[in-house]
């Protein structure tokens, strides 16, 4: 397996999916704004989708199940982004900030 035939091996896709997942995890911990955390969540879901598509292409006998799962992940992600962003706007209207450290009314 050389560098130019990487696209024919399953491991390449698994490694890039793991990279997307891990970097999304890092962003989820590191980011201090709600929108930044939403962006990290999108990265995590992209990693999961790449995994599904790779397994579908290389391992599954049914040719469409992974693609349909990925399509549904996209639909759920779009719904999730819309809901999350309207929550973010509501928080911004009430607190004048989308920083996670400012929204601490239940902090005690």
């Amino acid at each position, binding site marked *: 397996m*050389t560098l*130019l035939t*990487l696209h024919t091996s399953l*491991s*390449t896709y*698994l*490694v*890039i*999916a*793991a*990279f*997307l*997942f*891990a*970097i*999304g*995890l*890092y*962003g989820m*911990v*590191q980011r201090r704004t709600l*929108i*930044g955390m939403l*962006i*990290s969540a*999108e*990265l995590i879901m*992209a990693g999961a*989708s*790449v995994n599904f*598509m790779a397994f*579908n*292409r*290389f*391992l*599954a*006998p049914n*040719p*469409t*199940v992974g*693609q*349909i799962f990925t*399509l549904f992940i*996209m*639909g759920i*992600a*779009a*719904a999730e*982004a*819309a*809901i999350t*962003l*309207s*929550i*973010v*706007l*509501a928080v*911004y*209207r009430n607190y004048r900030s989308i920083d996670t*450290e400012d929204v601490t009314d239940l902090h005690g």
Partner: protein
Amino acid sequence: MTSLFSPEGLIGLLFLVLLGITACGALIAVTAGRLIRSVAGLLLCLIGVAGLYYFLNSPFVALMQLLIYVGAVGVVIAFAVMLAEPNPEKQPSRGRNPLTGALGFLTSGVAFTGLAVLGLTTTWRRHVGPPPDGGMAAIGQSLLTTYSMVFELISIVLLVAIIGSLVLARAGREKP
């Protein structure tokens, strides 16, 4: 050994470029200081992922990725950033444990290494025969037969999401 200047070599080079776009976009999305740059990095990363889908023998999903993620979700996030841009001149770490960054890096490093090693060392049970035909006709048929229930359910989910986001974003706004 494939030559770089054969068609296969060029395809391999294109794949390497797509891998680079995906990785760089993800890095920008997580590390950029301003939020709008991080949105741009996310869009770059998702374009790269769409290219990976194309290499995985499913142009339809690649096109949907471009339409839904890069087109719709990216624009929505960009609008939200414009409506609720955080204060850039706020002091960064107030009351924040300095260990958080290092621990997050460590955790994600462990997750990446574990998943990558697991994926590289497992012997996957290959399915024998020609690569599956993941064409649009096959996807449409299974969407309307095997997965028709899920197909209807997700339309309800999307409808509820639309109404819910309208209600949420409207609450607290005074009447004109």
